[in-house]
Structure formats: C-alpha cells, structure tokens
C-alpha cells in the first residue's frame, strides 16, 4: 500500500527574461568603466584594493547571469525521450560516520521503501575509523533491518575513501550516495534512473532538501541558502551540462566513477572535484529540481560554521590546485560554471576589503576614491537594484535577507579556510551534526562584534576630526550597512536575553536556554 504523502516540498525558481539579463550586463559594463577612470583614484593602494574587489564582484555577477541565461534545453524532456527500460542494478550507499542510530535507521527504512526492482542497501559505516562509539550499534542496526553494512577498519580519505572502499565490494551498475540523514522518497530511483538510458550520462543530481528547516533560525538560513543554490543556480548549471555532485542524493554510473578514479580522496570537497573529473572523461550529467530526498540542516552556529568551512576549504583548494580554467576536455561553459562555484568562497577576501575601507577612512581620513559620491551612486544603485530584482525574480522571492547576511558574515570562515589552505594546514572531514550542539558560540562572532565596536569608535574619531562632512556620512553609512549585515549572525551566536528580538524568535533551543 502506498503511504499517503503530505505536501511535497518544492524548490522555488523561475526563468529570467533575457532582456533583464542584457540590461544587467549593460549596467555592469557602465559600472566597470567607472572604475577604469584614472581621475577617480584617491589613495592608490586602497583604490586598487577596492578595484580588485569590484572586478571579483563583476566576474561573479557575469557568471551568475550566464548561469541563469534562459535556454531551450530541458533535461526533463531528455529523460522522457530516453526512458530506460533495462532496470540496472542499483547500490544505495548510506554513508555513516558516527551519526545517531535513530537518524540512520530512518534513512535505511526510507530507502527500503524505494519503488524499484533491483537495488541493494549498504550502510557504509566509517564510525570505527572516525573513532565514534556507536559504530557497532550501526552494524547491529544493519543486521536488524536486513541491509548490508560495510565497516572500514583501516584506510583514509574520509567520506570519499569510505565510498571508494564500498565500490570495491559492490557490483551495482548505478550507485546512489546518501548522507546518513537523507531519507529518500519512494520514487527516487523511478525519477532518476531513466536518465541513464542515455549511455553518456555519468550522474544525476537531485536537491539536498532540509526537512527540519523550520526548526530554528540557523536551519532556516542554511536551507534558504541551499534553496537558492539548488534552485536557479543548479538548474542553470544543469541546463549547461555543468551540474555539480553535492555529495548526497546523487545517482552515479559506476563506470563514470571508475573512469574518474573513484571519489576524489585528496580534496575535502570530494564531490565537487569528482564531478569535474567525470565531465573531463566526456560524461554528461543532469540535475533535476524535484525534491527526492529529505535530510537535516545544521541547527547550531558551530555546525553551520564547520559545514561552510569544509565547503570553503574544498572549493578554494579546487581554485588553487585544480583550477577548472586549465582543465582539458571541459567545455567553456563547464569551465566558467566550475570556476565561479569554486571562486564563490573567495568572497571573504573581498568582504574584508569592503569592511576595512570605511574603517580606515573613519580613523585616518584617507579616501580610496577621489570622485564625487553621486557620480558613483548613479552607476552603482541602478546596478544593485537590477541585480536584486533579478535574484528576486529567478529565486521566486525565496532568497532572504538573513541568508545574504549569513553569507556576508561568513567572511571569517572563508578567510580561515583560505589561511588553512595557504599554510597547508590539515583539515579533517567533519560530519555535519544532525542535532543542535549545546553551548554558546560567541567566539565565532568575535570578529563581527569587534567590527561593530571599531566602527562606533571610528565614528566619534571621524566626527571629532572632520565634523559631519559628506565623506564621513558616506563612510558611517557603509559601516552601518556592514553592522546591519552582521546582526543576524551575531544574534544567534549567544543568548542575548531578548536584545535581538527581531532575530531571536527562532533561536535554537540550546542557545536560547
């Protein structure tokens, strides 16, 4: 008997009009030319720092518009045309490294309900290697539920190594990778396997949906960021044969994975790099926006921080060690798409520049720009307005201020990831916690609080030095802008006892207690 389903989760996204994207590009070019005018140079060092930041922003903007540029190609139509009748053998890999037994149990039970003829479920138990106490209980769970369990006793490569180990011990033509908390819908295989009717298809990625997104503000924010990525961004990438493996909820052809050398073990973002290698071998891939599995979002700031840090470190490593621009046998679209995804985490450096410039002015009076504020505003405001209108349209209003504010505030973890990469610090693969961690995480927001204090003192210094001049007003406003952007992040780092009423409504239980 089919279980009755509640309302299915939907990922919001819409197609933008080409006219809007062309208008975006024209305004961006005008904005870019403004920065090329040498008469605008104030303090050269700071001007070129800002210039560098704006080049980065424009690059990211152009790649975003390229991503969402509407195309006739529809992967869903392709699937129907190539519907595969052969029912290949599928191996379901549930990767586990110390997650709670209850969480894993639900994932296995959901997988057992899959509507498909030939599939086997494997718990890839890495609890022993990860030195987690419950590795034995996971083995017992597998036994109780009648599924296979592959427990590694030795080896490396974290999650990638765990999967590669399973590949050696299984034979399915298609492997489906699921994180320990990702409960698949019963039609997951029905909806993804037909794509493999085309013998050139290497993998099919589906969204990483967080069913607990309403639990608290961090889970909500994490989902809002995910929704934008798995909405317009991944859809756009999918349309350009540039989808990315997100590490879970993905079906991969074993042959493609083998040709790519298995899951890449020398990078912390193993999924991202593996999909790149698969493309290099000439495989195609699809992304389908339909939610076919539901998992758990990080529910506390520390878990969020660690997850983001891992993604940042992995992506930046790709940027420096496996730059897609120099990879052979990739289309120019794939190069741009992979480059922009990897470069996203470079944002921390640019945010740092944008934070320092008003502070430097407030303390010293040094201005990087010599032009009138209105000549800049005239080219900047229409562009930012149009960019946000575009984002609003393509995300169908799903991207929230909080999600952007968290991205902005994540500059610290992005800088930390960059530092760890530059100094070759070893970063462990840490599984994102599936429950809210206890404690306060104020230490994560110390740089942000320090910025607020620095800004407030700077305002007084600037007012004492110059009085309320237009330059002081502009820089104070920028400092205030950054403070506003930091508020959601600071508000969830500690129990402020109602100080941040606006943001505190959804604070996680562990912090609010």
């Amino acid at each position, binding site marked *: 008997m089919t279980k009755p389903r509640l309302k299915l989760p939907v990922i919001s996204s819409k197609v933008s*009009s080409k*006219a809007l994207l062309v208008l975006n590009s024209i305004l961006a070019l005008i904005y870019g030319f403004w920065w090329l005018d040498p008469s605008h140079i104030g303090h050269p060092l700071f001007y070129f720092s800002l210039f560098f930041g704006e080049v980065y922003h424009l690059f990211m903007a152009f790649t975003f518009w390229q991503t969402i540029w509407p195309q006739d190609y529809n992967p869903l139509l392709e699937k129907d045309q190539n519907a595969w009748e052969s029912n290949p053998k599928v191996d379901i890999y549930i990767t586990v490294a110390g997650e709670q037994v209850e969480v894993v149990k639900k994932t296995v039970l959901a997988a057992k309900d899959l509507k498909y003829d030939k599939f086997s479920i494997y718990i890839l138990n890495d609890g022993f290697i990860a030195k987690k106490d419950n590795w034995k209980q996971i083995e017992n769970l597998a036994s109780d539920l009648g599924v296979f369990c592959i427990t590694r006793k030795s080896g490396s490569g974290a999650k990638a190594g765990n999967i590669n180990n399973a590949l050696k011990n299984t034979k399915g033509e298609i492997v489906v990778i699921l994180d320990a908390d990702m409960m698949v819908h019963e039609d997951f295989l029905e909806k993804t396997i037909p794509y493999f009717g085309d013998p050139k298809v290497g993998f099919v990625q589906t969204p990483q949906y967080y069913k607990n997104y309403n639990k608290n503000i961090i889970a909500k924010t994490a989902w809002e960021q995910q929704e934008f990525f798995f909405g317009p961004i991944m859809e756009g990438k999918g349309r350009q044969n540039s989808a990315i493996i997100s590490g879970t909820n993905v079906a991969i052809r074993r042959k493609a994975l083998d040709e790519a050398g298995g899951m890449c073990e020398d990078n912390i973002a193993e999924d991202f790099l593996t999909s790149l290698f698969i493309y290099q071998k000439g495989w195609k891939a699809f992304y389908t926006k339909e939610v076919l599995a539901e998992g758990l979002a990080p529910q506390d700031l520390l878990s969020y921080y660690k997850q983001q840090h891992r993604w940042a470190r992995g992506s930046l490593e790709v940027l420096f060690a496996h730059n897609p621009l120099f990879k052979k046998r990739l289309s120019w679209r794939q190069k741009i798409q992979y480059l922009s995804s990897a470069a996203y985490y470079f944002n921390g450096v640019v945010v740092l520049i944008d934070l320092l410039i008003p502070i430097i002015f407030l303390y010293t009076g040094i201005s990087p720009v010599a032009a*009138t*504020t*209105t*000549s800049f*505003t*005239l080219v900047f*405001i229409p562009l*930012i*307005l149009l960019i*946000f*209108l575009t*984002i*609003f349209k393509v995300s169908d*209003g*799903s*991207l*929230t*201020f*909080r*999600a*952007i504010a968290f991205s902005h505030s994540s500059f610290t973890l992005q800088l930390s990831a960059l530092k760890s990469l530059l100094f070759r610090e070893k970063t462990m693969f840490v599984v994102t916690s599936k429950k809210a961690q206890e404690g306060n995480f104020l230490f994560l927001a110390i740089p942000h609080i320090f910025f607020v204090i620095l800004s407030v003192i700077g305002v007084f210094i600037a007012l004492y030095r110059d009085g*309320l001049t*237009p*330059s002081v*007003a*502009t820089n*104070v*406003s*920028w400092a*205030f*802008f950054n403070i*506003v952007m930091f508020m959601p992040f600071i508000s969830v780092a500690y129990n402020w006892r109602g100080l941040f009423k606006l943001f505190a409504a959804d604070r996680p239980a562990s912090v609010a207690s």
Partner: protein
Amino acid sequence: MTNYIKQPAWAVLPLILLVAFAVNSFTLQSQSLRLDEAQSIWVTTKSVPELLKITAEDVHVPLYFLLLHVWLQIFGTDVVVARSLSLVFFITSLFALYQLTKQVSNKKIAILSVVLFSFSPFIVWYSSESRMYSLFVLMSILNSIFFLKFLKSGGVEGKFGLFLSTLFGFLTHYFFLFLVAAQFLYLLTTKIIKVQKKRDFRVVFLFTALILMDLILFSPWIIYMIGLGFASNTLPMIPLPTSYNLFQTLVNFLFGFPPQDIQSIIISMWPFLVIIIFLIFTQKVLFRPSFMGYFFTIFFLPMILAFAASYVFKPLFLTRYLIFVSPFLFIITAWLLSSYAKKFTYVLSFVLIFFMTGLLFLQNTSASSPIRENYQSAVTYLEKKATPRDIIALSPPFTIYPVEYYYRGQTKVATIPDWDRFSKGGIPSFSIENLQEQIKKYQEQYLRVFVVFSYDQGNKKDVEDYFERNFHRLDMQTFSQNLEIRVYRLRYDVDLPI
C-alpha cells in the same frame, strides 16, 4: 497609528486632510511673497488678452494664470488669497492620490502615500505658493488615474478623462510632455515584451491618436508664443545638471529644501538605499501591486529625459519643474514601507514622517533655507533705511515684482540693468559700460544706492565687483539665502543722513 488601517477611508482621510490643511495654512501665511509669486499676481491682475501675451512672452502656459485671474477677481489680490488657490488644488490632489493608489494596491498603501504626500516639505512648499505647481501635481495624478483606467480596459474606458487631463496638463506646464512620453514608452514596452497577455497594439494606436489630438489643440498656443518672440532675459538661468542634481531632486521630493549642507549629508548617506534594496528584495512574501512598473517608469523616466534634454538642447532640469512625478515617489515609498514586517513598517514610517516634519519646520524658519525668499524683511529694511535722497537698485530686474508688492516707501526703485516693464521687448542685456553710465547718472541725484542682490543671472559678480571697487560700502544685510542688500555711498559733497 496601529489601527488606522482598520478604519474606513472616510474616517482617516479627513484627519489627514485636517493636519495637512493646518500645516499648509501655517506655511501659506508665514512666508514672504516670493519672486515668482509676485510675478504671478502681477500678471493675473491684468486683462485677459494682456495676461495671455505676458504669459506667452514669459514662455509659460496659461491655464493656471487664467484660473488665478478669476480667483483674484472674486476674492481679492492679497498674497494669502492668491496662495489659497494652490491649497485647493493640493486638497483635491490628496483625494486623487488616494484614489489612484487604492485602485492599484490596497488601502494601507493608499493612506500611507497620502500621509507622506501631505507631510512632504516639498509638496507643502509648492501647495502654498501662488504658482502652477500644485495644479501641475493634480493634473499629473488625475491623468494617471485615467491612463490606468484606459490601459486596464484596453482603451475602452477613461478616454475622455485622459484626453482632457492631458490637454489641461499641457496647458499647465510644458514638462507635462515628459509624462506623456514616459507613458507612451511604458505602453509600447509592455506591449512589445507582452507583459499584457496578448500583444495588442490597438491601445497604443488609440493612445497616440488621443495625444495627437491634444497636441493639435495645444499647437495654437505654441504658434502664438513663437509669434510674440521669447523674452529670454526674464527666464532664470539654469546650470547644466550633474549627477548631484538627480539625487538632490530625490532628497527635495522627500525632505524639501533643508540648508545645502544638510542636503549634501542626506545624499551622502546613500548606502542606506542599498540596505533598503536588500531588505525589499529579500522579502519572502512581497506584495506586488499591479502597475508598480508604471509608477517606477513615470517617476524615473521623465527625470532621465529632462536630464538628457538638458545636455542635448538647453539646461532645463529644475526640481520644481519635475514636481509632477513626485506623487509617484510617495506611492513607491509607501509600497516599499508597507512591504516590510508590520512593526518595521510602523517604525520606518514614523521615523520618515518625523524627519519630514522636522525638516519642514527647518525649511519654513531657517534663514539658511535655500528656498526662502524673504523679500518682506528686505523691504522693511529698505523702508526703514532708505530716504528720498537715495535710490534702490534691484539686480536682476525681475526682482521688481516682490519688492513692488511690499514696498510703500518714498525712495525711487530702479533695476540693474534699467528696465521699463511697460515698453515692448524683454529685459535689456547687461553690460558693464551701461552699468557705469547708469550709476554715473545716479551720482548726480542720489546720496546712496541700496543694491538688492538676489538671483544670479550670470552677471552678479560683475555688479558686485563694480560697486566694491568704486564705492564705499556702508552696510550689508542678508535676509535669506541669495537675498542681500548692500548700501554704497555715491557722493561725498553732501553729508549722509543720520
């Protein structure tokens, strides 16, 4: 404020009306007659043919002057009476604006836009001025009501209203053409990109036909005006606009005319706009009223067109000429404010209205307010200090209108350059030789000259330098920004009066 939205419109609007009326009445009575107003009163006290002739020579359009003519005939020529006609247009605009906003959004946005409109120091200023701007605003709002009716019905309804409001709009101010151009471009664009369900150009053709008929009916005035020739020296000298002027226009619409340094500070705080953009486009549920794109178009496009025209033809970008787009800014602002969470909406609205009210007070009372023209005080000074043995010289000559309105003294009043308003032709052009000649004559008859400086028509510095180099300055008084009196001694053979 919390429950205003639950009240019926008839309960809320009169309250707003009462406050707006009080604020306007205060402004109306407290301010000195200004140069342009004096000119309006002077023109409208003439016979109708003469009124039309002077208006055409002055490159204006006649509707407002004709209405003011009738108004003054009925109620008298006092400045308060003249200004109260604008107040009537303003009050009518409140209802019209409510109607316009309500038909495309909801009551909350409609009321908020009316409140913002009523408290705008900019609107208050021009609603209590005996010039055409208040009528211009009313025509613009009425025209948009009919335009949207016309558009929504596919050209079936609102034709007559659109036709008339456009014609009256043209007869109120030449800048109405920019509104019509923006409407045309909006209509064309929406049809081309198929925002409307089907690409039906019939409504575009119909609109074009209506406008052509309006232009045909308006053309006799243009022919009449060209036939009379332009009295170019009576026009204010407008500098080429810069990016600063664009932002200043926005600041003026919302906050009126605070002292220049405060305007600069407000403009410099533009990063707040980025926060507003961030907040508005990251709303999970954003109420999208119909035709918001129309309001954005007819707010920004006329400004851009006027800005561009200033570079292509001649400088004509003045904030007050663009007043007809200001109601649409209040609709947009009200929509933005009401898009936020309820508490946030109330806090932001309160803060905005608080600032608007504060700046309105500053505008009406501060001597450094750039818009005030305190001719009344200047004339009081002249009446007190100047004697029949002195002469008063006004620069530029058209300052004669407000001075003449107030001045009851015995001293002769002349202008620099010397101008006889009642002879044919405009103001004679300025030259330093003519000035020397003019002052030489004064030296033969008068002891002192009281030079009243106001608008700079391009020769203010020449006049100032001439007097400063050649004569001993006895006194200097500033009455409002750009209005000062300097007293120079012309002769030394006779003792000065004590």
